[in-house]
């Protein structure tokens, strides 16, 4: 215990990119994520958002939890933990997964990278060491290592992201399909690039040994100088992910292991993630409960809403009638989408009312006067932002 700095225990950890972030964060807009000092925004949220949608931006994912799961039984262990069939994740491929309690309630979501026959990386938003260790119990040959602090990871997102990587000299990156992993020799180590991200747009995530992190940042920024590269923070990410209709813990779902009240957590079916639950694979935790849920149908369904007017439906209740006497759900995330020019939201709505009319009661403030409006909501089938370039291989350069 370091007692020379009397506040050492209170200080947040610093990302390997911190020397550059500190310079760029002219607004000193810091918050925290998993014990790391983390930018809420660097300069201006909307500016950063448009960089992501129009040019490219980098988002620090060092604080995101990363676990290395290795061993002969690693695949079986993961396959029993998550609802997707891990056996189907090919070498150097990534899959988005969720994992649940025995009762089929969602603990967290994350991505699984298959790095070898018997080696995986799992990433997720909040720590899950205890759950992983609990899951690994009883398997002969599997080790779980938290490698969060050993890796530097940076997400590069936006239409020019491909061009930047090409400029950086990553040969063959053009063949990377969505959810592909490519490996490049990098100053004696390996730079791993996955075509993944949290913006719904063209984008990549770069992973390298911690000691090369800053160097990678510099080389990436040098390559990106002509392509408008810019760091973006938590706030812009949240805008981009909502347009892509990606879910967030503590917004769309309450992590089951942190849920106090009975069934205040969610099932994958409620979150519209039924496609991630594979009943054809070998046994997985929560299978029986989820099968019940599937047959019965979820009580709530996470729904994408296009809402009348321009006032964001933050924390609004959803009603089945304009008089607001029959409450049928609540908004989990909402904003005005600058790219789509629409008032968008995600909302949890009682499944049995989904096909009827949907009304939101929105409260807002105008120069200290508080108003409320009841407005009509339209269900959307597709995410609000789905550019074709996100799926094209090779992708366009701008």
């Amino acid at each position, binding site marked *: *215990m370091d007692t020379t700095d009397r506040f050492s*225990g209170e200080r947040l950890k610093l990302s390997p990119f911190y020397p550059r972030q500190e310079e760029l964060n002219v607004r000193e807009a810091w918050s925290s994520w998993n014990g790391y000092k983390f930018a809420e925004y660097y300069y201006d949220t909307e500016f950063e958002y448009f960089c992501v949608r129009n040019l490219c931006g980098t988002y620090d994912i060092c604080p995101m939890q990363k676990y290395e799961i290795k061993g002969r039984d690693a695949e079986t262990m993961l396959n029993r933990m998550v609802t997707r069939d891990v056996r189907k994740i090919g070498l150097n491929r990534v899959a988005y997964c969720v994992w649940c309690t025995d009762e089929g309630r969602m603990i967290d979501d994350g991505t699984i990278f298959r790095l070898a026959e018997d080696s995986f990386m799992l990433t997720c938003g909040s720590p899950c060491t205890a759950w992983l260790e609990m899951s690994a119990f009883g398997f002969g040959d599997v080790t779980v290592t938290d490698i969060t602090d050993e890796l530097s990871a940076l997400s590069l997102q936006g239409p020019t992201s491909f061009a930047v990587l090409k400029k950086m000299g990553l040969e063959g990156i053009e063949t990377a399909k969505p959810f592909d992993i490519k490996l490049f020799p990098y100053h004696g180590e390996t730079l791993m690039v996955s075509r993944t991200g949290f913006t719904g747009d063209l984008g990549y995530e770069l992973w390298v040994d911690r000691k090369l992190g800053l160097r990678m940042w510099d080389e990436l920024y040098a390559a990106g100088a002509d392509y408008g590269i810019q760091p973006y923070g938590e706030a812009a990410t949240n805008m981009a992910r909502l347009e892509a209709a990606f879910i967030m813990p503590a917004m769309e779902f309450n992590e089951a292991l942190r849920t106090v009240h*009975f069934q205040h957590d969610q099932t994958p079916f409620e979150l519209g993630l039924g496609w991630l639950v594979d009943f054809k694979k070998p046994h997985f935790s929560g299978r029986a409960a989820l099968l019940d849920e599937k047959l019965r149908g979820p009580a709530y369904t996470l729904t994408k809403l296009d809402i009348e007017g321009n006032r964001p439906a933050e924390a609004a209740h959803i009603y089945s009638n304009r008089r607001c006497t029959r409450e049928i759900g609540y908004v989990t995330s909402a904003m005005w989408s600058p790219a789509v020019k629409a008032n968008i939201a995600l909302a949890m709505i009682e499944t049995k009312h989904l096909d009827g009319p949907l009304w939101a009661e929105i409260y807002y403030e105008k120069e200290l006067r508080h108003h409320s409006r009841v407005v009509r909501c339209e269900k959307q089938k597709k995410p609000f932002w789905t550019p074709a370039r996100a799926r094209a291989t090779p992708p366009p350069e701008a």
Partner: protein
Amino acid sequence: MSSYDAIVIGAGHNGLTNAAYLAKAGLKVLVVEKNDYIGGAAVSRELQEGWQYSSCSYVCSMMRQAIHRDLDLSRHGLLLVPYLGTVNFGDGDERLLAYHDEEAAHLELKRHSPHDADAMHRFQTDLTRYSQLIRKTLLRTPPDPTSFRPRDIMELLFLARTFWSLGEKEIYEYVRFFTMSAAEFLDDYFENDMIKAAMASPGIIGTALGVYSPGSSYILLHHVMGDVDGSIGAWGLARGGMGAISHSIASALKSYDGEIRTEAGVQKVLVEDRKAVGVVLENGDEIRSDIVVSNLDAKRTFTKIMDKADLPDGIYEKAKNFKIRGSSGKVNIALSGMPKFTGVPDNPYLNRGGQGFCGSLETMERAYDCWKRGRWSDDPFIESVIPSAWDPTVAPPGKHWMSNFIQYCPPKLADGPWTPEKRDAFGQTVIDKLERYSPGFKDLIVHMEVRTPHEIENEIGLTEGNIFQGELTIDQLFFNRPFPGYGQYRMPVKNLYMSGSSTHPGGGVSAACGANAAREILMDLKRPNTVPEDDFYDE
């Protein structure tokens, strides 16, 4: 000969609360207290000039906000201030610093065990869930499960419904939790012994159980189910010391024209025709009243201030068998400066928290083994707090007051009765341990008060010095408290009630026992209820 509607025996915080609610309902109430000060175990006393000693209870988290608000205690001078985390000391150099900030606390746990740092979320979630369920019952009178009266049946249904709402899985987990030991409960979450020891310490405070004894996980919960402003598990200090709580309630009582008479120990409860009709004081004065409320513990009430002949058959034996075991000691120290502890950064925020000298599970359990054998451990568990770091009223500027609570200290020693020499030797053991973690500590001592169960019993009348007025084990909890059949504050003699911690919900400065008893009395008198029914926090 004066006459009252109700006499409350004992001016502890529950007795005062009970009296305040009766007076608020318009009754003519008298509280009689044997000491020359009020407060019972919630006191502040100037034992050294310039210092206010909270010589018994020292921190507070169970005080029902509903009562605080209802009796308007802040207007009567009460301010409860939450204090920040606790520094836990291991057997050796290990320290577990409980930072107030969530991120910092997580990183600190991670330093000891990444697994446990993560598991802490689940632990806190589960404890919160368990707490919420119990908290719903605190300001309610337990039902009598042997009765068919509609009120009892309704209350049982309420409980069943509340319990049911946990969902199948949590019902099982709850029952499990309730009956197991603190150590086993913690094993479900943690692997690191330092973390387990720190988390287990609320499981032994005040009880004659060890961390490995089944039932100690409930004790753990009993200590963390309180809250300060809705944050469950937080502890607070009363500005001015714990006596401020008693004084504010007394002030509320007086505002409703209630009376308090000190130095008026009760010799005997007067019973005529199997009805309590008043009390006889130790000085021979007889005071009559329609109702008598004993705020003393159940054992003392029925074996000391009542005639066995006045009691129905079997009650005396029940009282004798009532488990009320002294297991705790207290060393209160006036300090000339702030002690520095090795391995702890000089962080002013941390200094405003407490210190837990828990060592390890084994050290704690071995201290319990000593207690069983009628001695105290050379390496006892100590929970300390330095309220003067927060509260300018309890020590002169620059000087400090430190409360040390020690588990375990036997009520009876194997080698004969307590003597002043043995008491001082016990105090020496405690400051020796503190000196080990804070070299130079002894030089700071200005004055020191050592209280073994013997002193606690003699001075404030808690039998054996048990801080809860009776063990908190299943056989003495809820409708079993103090005895099955008498869980609703009414005692076997008509017009006699109990309001102390011997009744549901048990020990702690919660004021709930006194308030619940008042509700029952008013119901019997067919008076409108003045007692808040439930906590108003939406959880």
